[in-house]
């Protein structure tokens, strides 16, 4: 069971997210709705990365690859005049699954430092690929339109897009919760603490981990699909390794190995960036040392600091 403080936090957080569109419309502050939407998209990405980092012991430094794959799926299809949202979504999911399958298949043969460096290198390869594809804008990026869902849903409306993102955030949290508490999730968590032992008692952990790697990639690919719709612009920057690092920071700030932590981490990180970059354009010089201190002294993250159990199912 979750502690009362955590349940309260979640409840308030959810209500605030639901209330943001009417509130910002009433106050005529659309900017903040966009910011909240952005936070939720990165929250989805961070939640999916935490499946690997916090539960699977797979330190992937290339999660931005799927953010890019998902968003390029939208932009490239739109480039050829295919604006059907359902098709774009299917392609975004399929493409990120395929990319995750290939990257995972190569990386999961290795461990530790190799794993980090190879996920990083392969993601950077996709980044360079994005830059060299002049047809799709090269390093300038490419403009794209919102996906069309015809009579089902009007994504052109900002509020509709906002609630779609919120829906996917809740959905990804639900899927993650189901996953980590299932038998499948237990195998993954077992292999995090001792992979050799899991193999010795008969689990082909490679297959389990690869499956988890693909699932995490797909969830992040969906985040990419949403990001392309929100910004109506796609650039190779989405796949830059700084982006991967940022998603990783969100997981750390929120609390690794917790279900809801990464959501708060994403919100905290983007809020911090927004607030501090108003004061100085050189905000990185403050954030860099803060990050070092966070790693040294605050490993539990915001979520872990709330009263309740150390880590686990919440």
């Amino acid at each position, binding site marked *: 069971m979750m502690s009362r403080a955590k349940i309260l936090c979640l409840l308030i957080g959810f209500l605030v997210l639901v209330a943001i569109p009417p509130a910002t419309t009433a106050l005529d502050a659309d900017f903040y709705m966009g910011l909240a939407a952005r936070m939720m998209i990165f929250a989805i990405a961070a939640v999916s990365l935490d499946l690997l980092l916090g539960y699977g012991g797979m330190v992937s430094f290339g999660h931005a690859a799927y953010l890019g794959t998902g968003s390029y799926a939208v932009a490239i299809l739109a480039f050829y005049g295919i604006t059907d949202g359902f098709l774009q979504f299917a392609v975004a999911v399929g493409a990120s699954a395929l990319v995750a399958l290939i990257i995972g298949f190569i990386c999961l043969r290795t461990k530790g430092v190799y794993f980090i460096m190879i996920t990083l290198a392969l993601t950077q390869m996709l980044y360079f690929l994005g830059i060299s*594809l*002049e047809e799709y804008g090269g390093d300038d990026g490419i403009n794209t339109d919102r996906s069309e869902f015809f009579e089902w849903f009007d994504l052109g409306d900002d509020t509709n897009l906002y609630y779609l993102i919120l829906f996917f955030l809740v959905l990804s949290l639900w899927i993650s919760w189901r996953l980590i508490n299932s038998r499948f999730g237990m195998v993954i968590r077992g292999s995090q603490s001792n992979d050799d032992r899991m193999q010795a008692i008969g689990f082909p952990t490679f297959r389990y981990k690869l499956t988890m790697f693909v699932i995490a990639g797909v969830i992040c690919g969906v985040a990419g699909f949403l990001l392309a719709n929100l910004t109506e612009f796609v650039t190779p920057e989405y796949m830059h390794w700084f982006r991967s690092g940022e998603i990783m920071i969100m997981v750390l700030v929120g609390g690794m190995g917790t279900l809801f932590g990464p959501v708060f981490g994403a919100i905290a990180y983007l809020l911090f960036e927004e607030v501090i970059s108003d004061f100085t354009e050189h905000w990185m010089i403050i954030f860099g040392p803060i990050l070092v201190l966070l790693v040294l002294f605050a490993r539990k993250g915001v979520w872990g600091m709330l009263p309740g159990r150390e880590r686990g199912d919440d």
Partner: protein
Amino acid sequence: MSLLLLLEQTLNGIQFGVFLFMISAGLTLVLGIMNVVNLAHGSFYMLGAYYAATIMAWTGSFILALVIMLPAMLITGIVVEVLVLRTMYERDHMDQVLATFGLILFFNEAVRMIWGAESMPMDIPAFLSGHVDFIPDAPYPIFRIAIIIAGLLVAALLYVMITRSRTGMLIRAGASNRPMVGALGVNIRMLYMVVFGMGAVLAGFSGLMAGPILSVEPGMGEDMLILAFVVIVIGGIGSIRGAVVASIIVGIFETVGRSILPALLTQLMSSDAAQSMGPAMSSMLIYIFMAAVLFFRPEGLFPARTG
């Protein structure tokens, strides 16, 4: 595609590989011996270039820049080790990655604040400028030859130091069994500090050599860092020999691949398709090669433990 151009590109490839070696050598030692992932290694490369460019702008002397930059890099490396890296040895890789990522953000922004966001000019020193005609009709810049020679010297020096000297012996011993070396009375903290500082000096040195031919700008270390990772993965963590071979391979693939592949593709398909495929394919070449190496040899070409 003429043979002459191919030869010139190969030389450029070797020269780029030598760069990569000087950066990777420090990184692979730190990784192999201390088991620490140091993303900030690219920042040392950047700082080396900036220190050197600044001193050159003040004094106009390349030699003076070299002489002052090397100890400055040693101090920078040791300060970073004492303040941040030292606390990270017992942590897991994830923490090391994030903390050193924080260092990158800090250094990039610091450079941008001190020297500005634009790239900084740095001239080729007079005594190394000009061309040499050692292949008939193909003048090759002396400075690039100097880079190749400097890199080979560094490689030879490192090799002798690690296999023949007492420090090198301790470094190798520390890599295979750290607590045992400590128990035998070796100051392992000091040893780590020296190795880390040495890595910073090497990275700074390659920054100095890169300054006149590549651009000195904030974030210049990042692309090099990724390539250095590729080199280390291919060569095997902690292996100097592996780093030498892998960086030459990667250097040649990067430069020769970029010039030959588009031409090769035009032979195979329509020139339009080749025009768009060429750059994309060549930018992926070394990563595909890395994946292939990993597939057959997950520990790299020259795993450090066996030599």
